């Protein structure tokens, strides 16, 4: 899967989880840039990503997702 394709699918998930159809993802985007991206919603997002991409994260992976770019890289490494 191409990176752009991952970002597109991820955008759909972000918009669904954070209930914001105007969200546009960028590599440097962090929780500070998105309303309602808290420790509570982060776990829901992770579960949605696992379901969508049919991958499994480890607890340790959570700490590697410093921003959206790192999240995309991690997803791609598991595909």
């Amino acid at each position, binding site marked *: 899967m191409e990176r752009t394709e991952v970002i597109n699918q991820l955008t759909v998930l972000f918009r669904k989880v954070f*209930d914001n159809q105007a969200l546009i993802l960028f590599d440097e985007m962090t929780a500070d840039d998105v309303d*309602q991206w*808290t*420790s*509570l919603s982060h*776990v*829901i997002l*992770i*579960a949605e990503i*696992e379901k969508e991409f049919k991958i499994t994260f480890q*607890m*340790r992976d*959570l*700490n590697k997702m410093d921003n959206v770019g790192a999240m995309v890289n991690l997803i791609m490494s598991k595909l």
Partner: protein
Amino acid sequence: MTFTSFNFLIFFPLTVLACYLTPVKKRWITLLLASYFFYISIQPVYALLTAGITISTYIFTRWMEITISEKGKKRLMVANIVIILTPLFFFKYFGAVNNGLMSWLAGTGLTWPLPEISLILPVGISFYTFMAIGYTVDVYNEEVKTEWNPGILALFISFFPLVLSGPIERSGNMLPQFRNMGRIEYTNLTSGLKMMVWGYFMKLVVADRLGLYVDVVYNNIANHNGTSLLFASLLHPIQVYGDFGGYSLIALGTAKILGFNVMANFNRPFFSVSVAEFWRRWHISLIKWLTDYIYTPLAFSMRRKGMTGIVIALLITFLLSGIWHEANWTFIIWGLMQGIFLSFEAITNRKRISVESRYRLNKKPYYILFNIVLTYILFTSSLIFGRAENVNDALLIYQKIFTAPGPLYIEKSTLIYSFIGVSILFIKDFKDEYFPGKLEFFNNRNTVIRFASYIVVIFIILLTGVLNGSQFIYFQF
């Protein structure tokens, strides 16, 4: 020796001077000696515990570093956590477990062979144990490098500004600062002193003055009516904020003067518009610690359960937070109440946001004020359990609040001084919250205004502060 003791006023300038005179590369030694001296001056024997936790953490994390298998690393991490948690459990919960077992066995007609043991909790044990656990987990997760210098690790665990009640700092922030210390800077000195002065104001003028009223009412629940109990209950959160917020600021200022940036522990919590936001502004270092090391692993393990998993994780996290405060039903209920409030907000979050954005409520002052007041009332209602001696007392307070109104108990001078202190504190917090950077006093560009404001605040502390060397509330935890 504590921050409000006379000895600290001698110890701290001498430590700063000693650090200034020590070459930068050797300064960790001066700070380590000062930290152990500070701790030993409170409880000499218990410094052995701090040293033991440091040695165990050092050995296990170094061992983890040279272990290749993932399972082996995990075993070492768990082993160290169990070892360093054992003293905390022993000192904090032995009495409660022992008494519980004794009364249970007595109920079944059996006798318990061990006598009742009452232990004095080593001050700060929770805080430095949590810091050591955090470091161990971070090393396991490869988030921080293993510290090879045992002296630096010992300093991280015993650093005197934080050792008594936090903030519960993270190795990722502190270890690099300890490894690369800079010069003692004049700017750090002034900003640290400003934090300390405001911290002393919060503690001595606000918290200790309010404490005089709250203690009188809460220590004699039977003889006070519902109105006085309600009033004392409403003042109590401000007392705790003044006490622990003040302590935290003094800790931050002390560290700043020595050249270290420590995370803030409070961020104007009473301007929160939800309980979730409140817990992002109140005892921030503990909540971050609980989030990273308890809530997130729990929620992650239950992520496929959706909202149910989040609710279970929240309830368990805050239940543990309650038990950490005290092995007592009052704090268990207090913790569960936080978990329930947060779970309710999490479940209704989507609906609430949709209503708020449809009617643009977030911009309307009356809606913001309503949510601020509601959040304060919810926290106050839980803190009644946190402050009462036992559940029966807490229930009696609730009963009296709703059924036994009467004339308010007034201690004129206490309430007048409290009113002055609380008003100044809230005006400053209000200004910082809604008009940041405007109408500065401590940071005013005009030297006269700046120095005049220092003098006025110090004068208020000396004139209206309770200068009896009282302890900080969080020392008991």
